[in-house]
């Protein structure tokens, strides 16, 4: 499988993303589109296509885009985890059973649990609940900012995308530091073992 050629560009990527998330496909109804699989015999085409999609997606405008996918997805994973650990337990059905209301105080306490407001967790809250609900959470944070808009302004973020980019970078840096720390710990352990072995050898030799 060749991964040397560039098959997809950024424009291709955006076009594919739009197409994948578009709902107005022929045959689509409110539920979706009926699955109608047909079997076709074509061995050569199958292997060529597998190579094309794999190399195309991977090489797309170089490795940096793959890194961007991975970093963005890592942040999305954190957001989803926060949603299930913090948001979901604090979401309650409205009496008409049509929507949800949220325990803003408890969510705020979670974001501020160490006495420091976690901006990452504030972003995860925004990701899960949107601006209006996040503004209600901020009221309980007793922070230096009044709402999401004020938060963005005080941090010199132009918009939410800018905030997301900053959080992606922070998470990437955090993971990189953790990896380095793990390596350091492993080296320290090795050194301790080596020192102990040398001491034992020396003592045994006396």
């Amino acid at each position, binding site marked *: 499988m060749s991964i040397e050629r560039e098959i997809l560009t950024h424009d291709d990527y955006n076009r594919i993303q739009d197409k994948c998330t578009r709902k107005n496909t022929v045959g689509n109804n409110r539920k*979706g589109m009926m699955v109608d699989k047909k079997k076709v*015999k074509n061995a050569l085409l199958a292997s060529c296509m597998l190579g094309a999609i794999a190399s195309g997606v991977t090489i797309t405008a170089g490795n940096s885009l793959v890194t961007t996918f991975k970093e963005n997805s890592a942040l999305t994973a954190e957001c989803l985890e926060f949603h299930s650990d913090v948001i979901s337990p604090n979401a309650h059905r409205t009496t008409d059973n049509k929507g949800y209301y949220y325990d803003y105080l408890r969510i705020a306490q979670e974001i501020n649990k160490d006495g420091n407001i976690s901006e990452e967790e504030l972003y995860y809250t925004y990701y899960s609940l949107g601006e209006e609900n996040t503004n209600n959470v901020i009221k309980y944070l007793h922070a230096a900012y009044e709402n999401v808009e004020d938060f963005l302004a005080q941090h010199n973020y132009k918009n939410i995308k800018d905030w997301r980019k900053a959080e992606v970078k922070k998470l990437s840096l955090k993971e990189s530091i953790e990896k380095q720390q793990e390596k350091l710990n492993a080296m320290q352990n090795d050194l301790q073992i080596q020192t102990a072995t040398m001491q034992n050898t020396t003592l045994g030799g006396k």
Partner: protein
Amino acid sequence: MNVEVITIDNQDYMIIKELKKENINYIYLSNMNDEKDILIKKITDDNPNYLLSLDSSEEFQKALLLFLNDQFPSD
């Protein structure tokens, strides 16, 4: 070798890969006449007979990452 094909917007797409994550089966498709035309759709356990579009760009990235990790596992 038999390949499975789904027709979307009057175009035949070959199923390249199916990957399951939680209760969602992501379907990776490639247009049989245009190698740049690739698609990711999903089938959920709740609606097994329906092919659905992805909900958001976040889900698109998630599905793409799932494919990348499957094809090129990292260390």
